[in-house]
């Protein structure tokens, strides 16, 4: 009987150290081999040139829960995964895992490039712990899932990287793990395949405890029920408030410097700001449903006709989510002393909670020729109590 509240993963005070220098690392390796034989019971302290790659991580994970591990490159995510997967041993603390562990860390492990796809299904399946009978029973299903039946008897060295990943995932998808560890492996396939992967993961999620490492925050917010933000091996934020963790992650990369991508020299942006906003030290904030009111000031050397302004709202992943309606050439823009200034207002902003930035493109009115393009001129945060990963939270009226 599988109980819903089984604790499947328990991590207590987990730490792991690494050595920065190869020669020293090998020498320590030799010493560790020796102490390992005698049971390894003495205290581990940092030796010269060592650092904590993971320090004092604690969490528990039950069936049906998904833990997101996020953090910048080198924060210790992969090291933590390797310990959870039993590939390397912790230097402090303890991991207890109940049930069968599956890892989507490397797809297609055990493939030999000159053997055919079909033969490699057996190789990969064997590495993942299947028996011959299990693979025999599933091989057709695997080929269909990977959608490469036509090429299944071709050596995999002639496969594209996407086909390799497809085949690897198709085999791995046959695992029925209690604990699933996912590293960023699904990024190579095409969109159709990625969707298929997530459909599979969604299907197994209710019966599984998942540890998910990703840099794709929409994926994390979609899948995870709790989150750990790692920074230099230490847990910086931990809890069930997934969006808070994601916000903290983005703040680390908050880029407050605008950059001019294109400039033909005819006009220059000298000032831009968000009017009527809540200002705290880090970032300007706006309540959901407030008016978004922007103020721009340009100067120019030669007199020019009023250009068109493309004002684009980008989300924290630099995806454009909205375009503000363009001005027409008769708009009420104040021009004087080689300067022009105007306000743009969008009423009742309905972007969902999160951090956004504004980019601006200025175009010549008659032929839409670009004059100026500046990215990240204003950063702002929308405040709302509801966490959502969709870009818009639209106002509704429910009636009967």
């Amino acid at each position, binding site marked *: 009987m599988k109980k819903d509240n*089984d604790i*499947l993963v328990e991590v207590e005070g987990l730490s792991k150290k*690494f*050595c920065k220098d190869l020669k020293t*690392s*090998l020498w320590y*390796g*030799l010493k*560790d*081999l020796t102490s*390992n*034989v*005698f*049971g*390894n*019971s003495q205290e*581990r302290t940092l030796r010269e040139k060592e650092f904590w790659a993971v320090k004092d991580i604690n969490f528990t994970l039950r069936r049906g829960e998904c833990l997101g591990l996020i953090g910048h490159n080198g924060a210790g995510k992969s090291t933590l995964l*390797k*310990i*959870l*997967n*039993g*590939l*390397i*041993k*912790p*230097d*402090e*603390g*303890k*991991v*207890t*895992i*109940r*049930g*069968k*562990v599956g*890892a989507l*860390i*490397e797809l297609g*492990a*055990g493939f*030999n490039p*000159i*053997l055919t796809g079909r*033969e490699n299904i*057996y*190789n990969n399946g*064997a*590495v*993942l*712990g*299947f*028996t*011959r009978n299990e693979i025999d029973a599933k091989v057709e299903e695997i080929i269909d899932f990977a959608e490469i039946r036509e090429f299944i008897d071709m050596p995999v060295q002639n496969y594209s990287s996407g086909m390799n990943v497809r085949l690897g995932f198709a085999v791995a998808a046959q695992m029925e793990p*209690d604990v699933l560890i996912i590293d960023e492996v699904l990024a190579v396939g095409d969109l159709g395949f990625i969707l298929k992967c997530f459909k599979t993961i969604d299907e197994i999620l209710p019966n599984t405890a998942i540890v998910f490492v990703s840099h794709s925050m929409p994926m994390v917010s979609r899948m995870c029920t709790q989150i750990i933000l790692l920074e230099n091996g230490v847990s910086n934020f931990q809890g069930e408030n997934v969006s808070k963790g994601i916000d903290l992650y983005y703040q680390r990369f908050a880029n407050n410097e605008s950059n001019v991508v294109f400039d033909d020299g005819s006009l220059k942006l000298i000032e831009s700001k968000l009017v009527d906003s809540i200002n705290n030290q880090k970032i300007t904030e706006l309540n959901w449903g407030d008016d978004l009111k922007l103020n721009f000031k340009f100067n120019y050397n030669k007199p020019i006709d009023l250009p068109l302004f493309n004002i684009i709202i980008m989300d924290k992943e630099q995806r454009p989510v909205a375009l503000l309606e363009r001005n027409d050439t008769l708009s009420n823009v104040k021009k004087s002393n080689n300067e022009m200034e105007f306000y743009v207002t969008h009423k009742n902003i309905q972007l969902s909670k999160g951090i956004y930035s504004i980019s601006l493109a200025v175009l010549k009115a008659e032929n839409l020729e670009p004059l100026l393009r500046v990215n990240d001129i204003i950063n702002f945060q929308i405040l709302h109590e509801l966490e959502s990963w969709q870009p818009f939270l639209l106002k509704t009226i429910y009636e009967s």
Partner: protein
Amino acid sequence: MALEVKIYQKENNIKIGRLIKDSLSDIYTSRFLAKQLAVRDIKAQYRQSFLGVFWAFITPLTTAFVWIFLNETGTIQLTDTGVPYPVYAFSGTLLWSIIVESINSPTSNTNAAKGILSKINFPKEALVISGIYKLLFNSAIKIVLLVVFVFFYGVGFHTSLFLFPLTIIGAILFGTTIGLFITPIGMLYNDISKIITIGLGLLMYVTPVVYVMPKEGIMRTIMQYNPFTPLLVTTRDFVTGATPEYVSYFLILVLACIPLFFLGLIFYRISIPILVERMSA
């Protein structure tokens, strides 16, 4: 069904009995993996080759050929071996190549699996066992060739020829056991594999591989103590039907290798996490 519980922590369980039991159960559960890995490597090796199995015995064949040539042309004077020299030389170099291959097998298999070792958790014993499968396969080809030699040079059939595959297994066990103890250190420092290559090259000359043991002198003493000697001499005696002189040393050696093999396997098993950490760091 109760869920299997795994605990990962710094401390090692060093109860030998428990470790051997775990190791054996992993060998059992990974039997398909071991076979599959061996089949994969053998297939891949021969599919991308025109000459195929020829490569399995080319090294001992050329070494034997050099010595046969030196002997036949009178360049060097070797003591009479009692059997046709080509059979003597080839049986020696062939068995020597099996021993060398066995010693290198755990290290080369572990090295080849580096990629999956640092990504996927699977029973590491499968690498050792698949290595043994591959050794058996390669040795079988060599044995067939040697039997052809035996009949071609008129040594004739002796019932002891049936015991000869057993001594080959003894040689593989001996080599793999040494290999298991070397591998963890050899994975860290590549000096080890170089030392082994040079060391075995020299060791061949103090083992009766291509010439017989002298009647007296320091060389005789060295050869008599050299643990490679009983392996070679006994195997050759079984092939040629001579009375085996070193059979008790041979038996002691093989019997000693059995517990040492399991000890080596445990050393290998508990060392892998440390190696993975150092090679992927």
